[in-house]
């Protein structure tokens, strides 16, 4: 059934279709609508869940952890400062192997106070052990929520779904809602092997010596590696229901491209349009959208870029002191594997609009350039 809705509501309905059982959240712009809608959905009886409005994001993730440890399907959503405040608990959720799905609306960190799109908030959580998806459309947000639980509950790792503030959170798009009966078949109730159960008591979070801790990390790493195959497998299953396929990367016109632009989030959607226009101008440019950054799809990326001669990464984030984070990740993946040169670009930091013409400019600049550069800060006023 097709409906028009904002990206935020796509997240709410994704959680509803996934039949989440416990929702714990704290409001923050631009995430607020996700949670308000869910509280309405729960209050109206459209979802049989417990809705807890807690007193901070730290408590929101803590409540999700508690719920998930009992075997309930738990959900939360946040943004920027809220995600940062959750940080301790994100490590916990991952190390405790709890398949919580959380949505983060990518918003710039303060100060200066800003509510606009920027990926630094969620990329700062990169090493917490969460699987991390960057959605680029409202449809993607809804589908990723369902898919997120499907994969998370098999590999026992949380999933973080991020998407751009306002460009996606508050923009209305057409979303095809899968039937709940179909989703029920695809996503059976969560029933973990180990859970808090009064009839079969267990203890969670015990002191761990150096005898065992390393092995916890080993198992998490293995789970991440397994997730790569599972994301694809479940993507195919989901495609059977919905005719929509989601992979870790989404290459667009990359097969014969001389230059491949590497993008994520809403910039990826704009880049697809830019690529079409560039092709009409006779320039062989493709767009490689990174949808999943953890687990990192190294082999898929190597396959997608193997025929091109130049790569330009566009980052709406920065690791100050080095450079754009997607660029760093990509370069580390290519090292020892190919010698295709990589240009790093920053654009759209703090919510600056990245237009089709900006992407075409980046593309033209890279096509002309002979010397790759780590970081070119486009549009910075100095």
């Amino acid at each position, binding site marked *: 059934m097709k409906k028009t809705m904002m990206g935020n509501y796509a997240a709410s309905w994704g959680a509803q279709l996934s039949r989440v059982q416990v929702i714990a959240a704290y*409001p923050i*712009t631009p995430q607020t609508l996700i949670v308000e809608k869910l*509280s309405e959905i729960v209050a109206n009886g459209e979802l049989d869940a417990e809705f807890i*409005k807690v*007193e*901070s994001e730290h408590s929101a993730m803590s409540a999700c952890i508690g719920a998930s440890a009992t075997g309930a399907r738990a959900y939360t959503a946040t943004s920027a*400062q809220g995600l940062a405040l959750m940080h301790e608990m994100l490590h916990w959720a991952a190390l405790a192997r709890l398949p919580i799905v959380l949505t983060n609306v990518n918003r710039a960190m303060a100060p200066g106070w800003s509510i606009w799109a920027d990926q630094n908030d969620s990329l700062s959580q990169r090493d917490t052990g969460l699987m991390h998806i960057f959605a680029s459309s409202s449809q993607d947000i809804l589908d990723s929520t369902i898919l997120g639980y499907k994969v998370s509950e098999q590999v026992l790792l949380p999933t973080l779904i991020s998407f751009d503030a306002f460009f996606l959170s508050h923009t209305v798009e057409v979303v095809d809602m899968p039937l709940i009966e179909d989703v029920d078949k695809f996503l059976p109730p969560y029933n973990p092997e180990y859970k808090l159960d009064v009839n079969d008591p267990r203890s969670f979070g015990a002191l761990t010596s150096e005898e065992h801790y390393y092995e916890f990390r080993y198992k998490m790493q293995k789970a991440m590696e397994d997730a790569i195959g599972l994301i694809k497998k479940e993507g195919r299953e989901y495609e059977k229901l919905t005719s929509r396929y989601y992979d870790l990367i989404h290459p667009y016109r990359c097969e014969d491209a001389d230059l491949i632009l590497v993008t994520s989030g809403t910039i990826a959607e704009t880049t697809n349009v830019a690529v079409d226009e560039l092709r009409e101008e006779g320039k062989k440019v493709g767009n490689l959208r990174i949808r999943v950054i953890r687990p990192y799809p190294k082999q898929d990326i190597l396959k997608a870029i193997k025929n091109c001669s130049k790569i330009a990464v566009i980052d709406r984030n920065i690791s100050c002191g080095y450079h754009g984070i997607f660029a760093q990740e990509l370069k580390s993946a290519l090292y020892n594997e190919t010698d295709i040169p990589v240009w790093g670009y920053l654009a759209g930091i703090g919510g600056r609009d990245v237009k089709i013409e900006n992407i075409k400019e980046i593309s033209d600049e890279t096509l002309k350039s002979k010397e790759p550069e780590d970081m070119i800060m486009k549009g910075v006023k100095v």
Partner: protein
Amino acid sequence: MKNIPQKVIHQYLRHQKKFPHVWCAGCGNGIILGDLLRAIYNLGIKKDNIAMVSGIGCSSRMPVYVDFNTLHTTHGRAIAFATGLKFAKPEMHVIVITGDGDAAAIGGNHLIHAARRNIDLTIIIINNSIYGMTGGQYSPTTPTGKKATTAPYGSIEPTFDLCELSRCAGASFVARSTAYHTIETRKIFEKAILKKGCSVIEVISQCPVVYGRLNNITSPVKMLEWQRDNTIPVSAISKLPAEKIKGKIVRGIIHDVDKPEFTEEYDKLVKQFEKQSDNYKNNTKNNS
């Protein structure tokens, strides 16, 4: 009351740079800011001797508009930032502006610990019974049964009495006023700023746009009248019959005691050790 012309207030505002402000028409925040500026004017404190610290929320936007030393911090943490500031600059008057969500939900821990330590801060909590800035989620002071976007059928949670909470936690000065009672508010602010110790002032305010709309009270005037009709001065309690007091919110200075202040106690400790170490140095010198 001293007759204070508008111009006097203007000297404290960054009206060239930061206006127009973000507050909705009918909001209580501006009234309370006016009360505070009049209090500061009456006390004759120099602008540079005031540091105003806030968290995040509509109310917490206040420092942006005033020409003091200002620090607009993160949601819930104003008191923690202010604690550091007060230690670095104990001679400054440190005023914290915070909302009910900011002070009592996400930042509740900081509030009780500032009160417990009795650190010399003037903490003004603007209680509009809701999260205004994020569009109307319920807060720890949303009256049970009242609506919020996260409580579409009314909140089922009990509320905090912010004054009781602060008094029990150890604050040496605790008071309550409303946006309606501007003269009382100003006088309370004057006392609170001069008080050595942790002062917590809860000012009941109106958020017509979010709280009012969700709870079918459309007029700011009605909300101000509610403040007038549903509060009684603390001094009247002993004089009024029980039925007149029932259900009313008490306003005025609820608690005012003298007790050791944190930064002063800390200073004393440092001085004591300095003296001991001086004695030690002198002794060792004499011995050698």
